[in-house]
């Protein structure tokens, strides 16, 4: 695989500074990292024989921006108190997290293909005891957000300037715990906390609208005291700009409502609830999907024959 943009540590040790390809814009590099992460996570789900592809593909661009540009994290700094924290509250998108982290040098991409296998560090849902750069264990919707809030509050108490990011699913917003955390974050004025919502309009079974309506969503977050930005969650430039907004917001936490497409990048999956998971991908489906993502024959070979 060709070199990809790595995390750019802001406070990290100097020898850790990642390579940046010259002559290619950061945006283009991030989009490319996201594309490769999509390929990686589909391959991992194929090998695993089960997994949730739809919601992994919808958040790949945001994860690429977090790990590739926004967050102050670097592979050797998993214990550094000054690192930024990321919590994947929608833990079922674990393959997307592993793939983004692999692109950013946090783990070996080949090893991450052991997803969901007995003995693998790459558990079906992220587990903090298995991977040092996973900040907490998730899988039960709603909880990751609360944990992230606890981190943000704890960092403030310790006068640590690190920032905390967490990614939630739209269906996840139906959990009451989310509104408990939303209320508490605003009350405690946690401007070091940034929530991303993967607003792909679908949840496990069907559209949010038919399962449990979420709209008007921005109004809900505003009423709970949050600074709200709405963006196209596949537009890398928009994602980076929303992060910049969040970074300069003071006295209130920020939420980025990112409109996305579940299954993004793979036509047979886009907007199809059945691809939420836990599905088994055939080899043929996987090859089709990778091809749709622009994989070469050699790349497909690399990803599928391990």
């Amino acid at each position: 695989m060709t070199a990809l943009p790595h995390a750019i540590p802001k406070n990290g040790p100097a020898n850790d500074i990642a390579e940046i390809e010259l002559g290619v814009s950061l945006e283009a590099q991030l989009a490319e990292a996201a594309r490769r992460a999509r390929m990686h996570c589909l391959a991992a789900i194929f090998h695993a024989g089960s997994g949730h592809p739809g919601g992994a593909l919808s958040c790949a661009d945001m994860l690429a921006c977090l790990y590739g540009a926004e967050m102050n994290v670097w592979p050797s700094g998993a214990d550094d108190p000054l690192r930024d924290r990321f919590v994947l509250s929608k833990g079922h998108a674990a393959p997307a997290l592993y793939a983004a982290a692999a692109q950013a040098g946090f783990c070996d991409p080949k090893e991450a293909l052991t997803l969901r296998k007995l003995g693998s560090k790459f558990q079906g849902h992220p587990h903090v005891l298995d991977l040092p750069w996973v900040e907490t264990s998730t899988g039960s919707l709603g909880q990751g957000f609360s944990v992230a809030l606890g981190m943000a509050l704890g960092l403030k108490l310790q006068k640590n300037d690190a920032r905390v990011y967490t990614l939630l699913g739209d269906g996840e917003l139906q959990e009451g715990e989310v509104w408990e955390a939303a209320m508490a974050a605003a009350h405690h004025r946690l401007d070091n906390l940034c929530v991303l919502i993967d607003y792909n309009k679908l949840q496990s079974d069907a559209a949010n609208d038919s399962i449990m309506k979420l709209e008007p969503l921005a109004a809900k977050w505003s009423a709970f005291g949050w600074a709200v930005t709405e963006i196209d969650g596949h537009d890398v430039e928009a994602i980076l700009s929303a992060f910049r907004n969040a970074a300069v917001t003071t006295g209130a936490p920020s939420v980025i409502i990112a409109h996305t497409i579940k299954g993004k990048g793979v036509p047979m999956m886009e907007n199809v609830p059945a691809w939420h998971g836990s599905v088994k991908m055939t080899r043929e489906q996987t090859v089709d999907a990778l091809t749709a993502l622009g994989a070469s024959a050699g790349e497909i070979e690399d990803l599928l024959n391990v």
Partner: protein
Amino acid sequence: MSSPALIGSSGDSLREAFGKALSALADEFPNLVVLDADIAGGTGVHHIRKSHPGRFVQFGIAEQNMMAAAGGMAAVGLLPVVTTFAVFCLRAIEQARLSLCYAKRNAKIVASHPGLDVGPDGGSAQCLEDLAAFRAIPGMTVISPADATETALATRAILEFGGPVYMRTGRSPAPHVFGEGHKFEIGKGQIIRDGSDVTLIACGAEVARALAAAQMLEADGISARVVNMATIKPIDRELVARCARETGAIVTAEDHNIHGGLGGAVAEALAATVPAPIEFVGVADSFGSSGEPEELAYAYEIAAPFIAAAARKVLKRKK
């Protein structure tokens, strides 16, 4: 355009058997309503959603509200069945306690995805605590059937039963244990294989494994009785005591933490009647991890050979 293969949505999983039974029973129980928290395909209740859409009520991903709302639905004369994964039932246990059990509502909770049987989703999703936790609630009946046949019978039984019930199904395709003539009665265990040296008392996925263990033991000349203890609460005290009297040594086997579940219920029953040595087969107070259910049964030592080994161990302690 190809569609994905949904895992476990066909085949002989207990959740499928439950879902189909529910759908088949809907006409007989006109007040039956099924509550879902965006996981119908996972719990098997997509069947009744299709066959009886008017009986299917969607709560979204909000288990606490669903659980307590079931109390309200029962209060106005409906017969609500709350469905989600076991670990998310745990999330709503205080609601089950107050709004179902304390208020003595005729409502049922049916939990799929218990224990290591969950497989690759991993430790966060594998509930090893539910039998213990729900057993502790006053007035709660706790059931874990062994196969698809028994699940279908138990589904009818809990709908006929007047009070709150927590029942486990299962995610993975499960071997058939029982034939056509099988009977299920809440509160009654059954000797499904006789033996005289030791009794293996199991529930859920461990029943088939206990039978396999009994065969392994037979090869060693050990005669093992196997009891299917589908009702964990109220435990069949008489049967448990009789087995202790007749075989003098007990092994319990469950896809659950070794603390507080079936093993705990049997230990309490025996201590109160016929104290006897027990070896506990279950997950030894650790969380599970990703893997296939059969692999995990070996990794966490609840597979048949471990039941057989426990039997050999308890035989040494037998007086």
